[in-house]
């Protein structure tokens, strides 16, 4: 069954037979390999994408259910190169192996979009959805705090 998905701002025709999760349509059909397979059971968060702005694990969403919704993957999000989150992420040299980082960035972006100045507890809750085996957590925390500060400063100055 061919369906049209709205991915990173463009309408894209894909094959969505049976219950195929969005993850595999992104990776195998569309070559959007920034969204990663790691656990396949919605536990590790490496496949996080934005569905109408809300972070969702692409290995657990059926493709057919994404029709009519706006999907943003890391490739789409990364186009905002001057976003404070991406800047601090680079500045603090957060990634190590980098494999989970799309999931981390997508989740942190959603958190800051919803709340410019999240509490430590809110950061804990949001970011504990994505596992990192290299242990980049301390830098992720710092990057979120720093991005939040610079976003607030920008708001005040404008």
């Amino acid at each position: 069954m061919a369906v049209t998905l709205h991915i990173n701002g463009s309408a894209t025709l894909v094959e969505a037979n049976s219950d195929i999760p969005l993850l595999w349509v992104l990776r195998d059909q569309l070559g959007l390999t920034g969204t990663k397979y790691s656990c396949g059971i919605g536990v590790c968060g490496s496949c996080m994408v934005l569905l109408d702005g809300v972070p969702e694990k692409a290995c657990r969403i059926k493709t057919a259910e994404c029709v009519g919704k706006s999907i943003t993957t890391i490739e789409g999000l990364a186009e905002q190169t001057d976003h404070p989150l991406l800047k601090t992420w680079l500045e603090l040299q957060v990634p190590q192996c980098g494999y989970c980082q799309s999931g981390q960035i997508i989740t942190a972006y959603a958190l800051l979009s919803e709340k410019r100045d999240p509490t430590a507890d809110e950061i804990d809750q949001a970011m504990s959805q994505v596992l990192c085996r290299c242990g980049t957590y301390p830098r992720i925390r710092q990057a979120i705090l720093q991005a939040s500060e610079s976003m607030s400063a920008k708001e005040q100055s404008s």
Partner: protein
Amino acid sequence: MKPFNPERRAFLKKSALSAGSALVLGIAWSGEIVAATDTEPSFKPNAWLKIDTDGVVTLYIAESEMGQGPFTSLSMLIAEELEVDWQKVRVEHAPLDPAYGFQGTGGSRSVRRNWKTLREAGAVAKQMLLTAGAESLKAPIDRCQAHQSRITHISSSKSVSYGELVGRAAEMPIPKNVKLKHHKNYKLIGTPVTRLDLADKLNGKARYGIDIKLPGMVYATIAQSPVFGGTTKHFNGAEIKRRAGIIDCFDIGEGVVVVAKSTWQAFQARKALKIEWHEGKTAQLNSDNIIQRLSGETSEKPSLILERGDAMARLNSARNPIASEYRLPFQAHMTPEPMNCTVGVEDGQYSIWAPTQSPTSAKASAVKALKLLVPQATEAELEARIEIVTPLLGGGFGRRIKQDYVTQAVKIAHRLKRSVQLVWPREEDVQHDHYHPLTQHRLRGSLDEAGNPQAWHHRITGLQSSKYGADTLPYDIPHVRVEMLRLDSPVPIGPWRSVSNHYNAYAIEHFFDELALAGGQSPLELRLKLLTEPRLKAVLHKAAEAASWHQQDQRRLLGCAVHSSFGSHVAEIVELIRLDDQNLKLGKITCVIDCGTAINPDTIKAQLEGSVIYALSAALKPPISLKNGRVEQHNFHDSPILSFKETPPIEVIITNSQLDPGGVGEPGVPPLAPALANALLSAHGKPVIDLPMELNGTS
């Protein structure tokens, strides 16, 4: 950077890469296949670097980039001597070539074994550029200097760029002896240079093994026997082949393979497999009976690892000997990218994209697999038909030293005669790892009248265990005996970040605290008194200062541990905060390393933060266990790792020194678990004899 273009498969036509030939292929970390043609003029003085006419400097790194940073730290070594504009540096995994020697990344060796070689490679190239530049500027060479990718005649300020000198430099004789810089003149080494692999790790463009897609490629997955060593008796292959999208289903010995038009179809078909296994003897195996075998009495003679004085006699005559027994369980690696391998097949040639820690071993495994399938071919013929390309690795931690996924992918590709990608689902990855071994440690010690340790006896009993980390006791104790009984393992065992240092340091450092407390001494003060390695003593001293060791009370409890491994010396202090009678919580963790010359301090800091978190997962989370010959865990839900909110603050301090660099990827792991156990010992007065540790409800 050009986009990934799998059609550009020049590598296949260039497959006869031989020693001494120019570097013709590689894969950039962004996935771009690089095939420099011989017609493009460039300056390639050695296997490590190439300068093009536009001034772009390409560095070929022969260590696997799995997050630990060799792309950057090794590039810094070349660039330091080459005097190159860092903005013009790009980096790639080197192809597999004898010019690089054995290509295998492990043992925190990347910087140590390249320290001299790569600086010399840079210095040789700089010398040739200087000679060429002086000639071009018609200036005496001793009045010219190399700086920021230019050769400048100092007095006239006339200069010429490296790019412009490419043709002329290539004609220059290769200097035999080059002088390396004095450390006072370093410009890059010791500075927190931004990693060269970061940008594409932020935008989804970084290509890992699992992201490789070849033209016409099909997707394979595997179901291996849940019981180690089991073989297939019968499976519903015909039924599986009738499923939509399934191309083939067959047994390759290691398990049943499903080949499909997509990963999802392959994964779903794997779940629908009904396989009967010949389970074999291992089916009787449980963690409990392995533990019994390790703790039981045996007539087998252990091998002697370290002896001084007469520990046994002292212990036998000691009035109050102290004895303890610790056990460290199986651990999985849980690399974020599951095992996978992609094989391109064209005209009988195999190009293998292997996210491996050792391209050399990957090739050997591929040759071995093909030799069994094509016995008439000679090894040399098979070698000429195999190309290994190393993409980025989504974590390694020792797991990718093993090449089982490469062997399987080659077998599948040979049978299909077409390009194929093998991906293990996470469940296969957890159940078919090469695990951190289960080890048992029996320790006995005695004290002299002043309460100082006098005798020490450590017996390691472990599955394929190793002595490293226990072969030198860092303390001045007069009577010492360390021995090991190494048993065969029915479970695959492999190197796991810091290898045997993890379990051996645990035993030594936790028992040291037991002895110190039995003698009424402060574990910190006694260490500072007895440590024989001044560098280890210095890092402990610094850690104690940073963690405010002397400010301890009933609410704030600290534990410390030290360990030297992979050429570096580390001290760690774990803080526990008492919440109430029953519960403790992790406070700050302090980590001090002396790794000699610190190449890229920011990478070192990242490696130590990561090591602490990696070791905390092993200390606090459920380990791997066996029942009926099967690993009982399946995925991240039952083989968990530390999460964001469970991670305490970590302070890393790097001490400065001009000594040769030590390793940094692993030395931060071993001291963590004993430091935490020592803090718990201080809280509860009881040693921690088994992992995982419990912070709650154990007062």
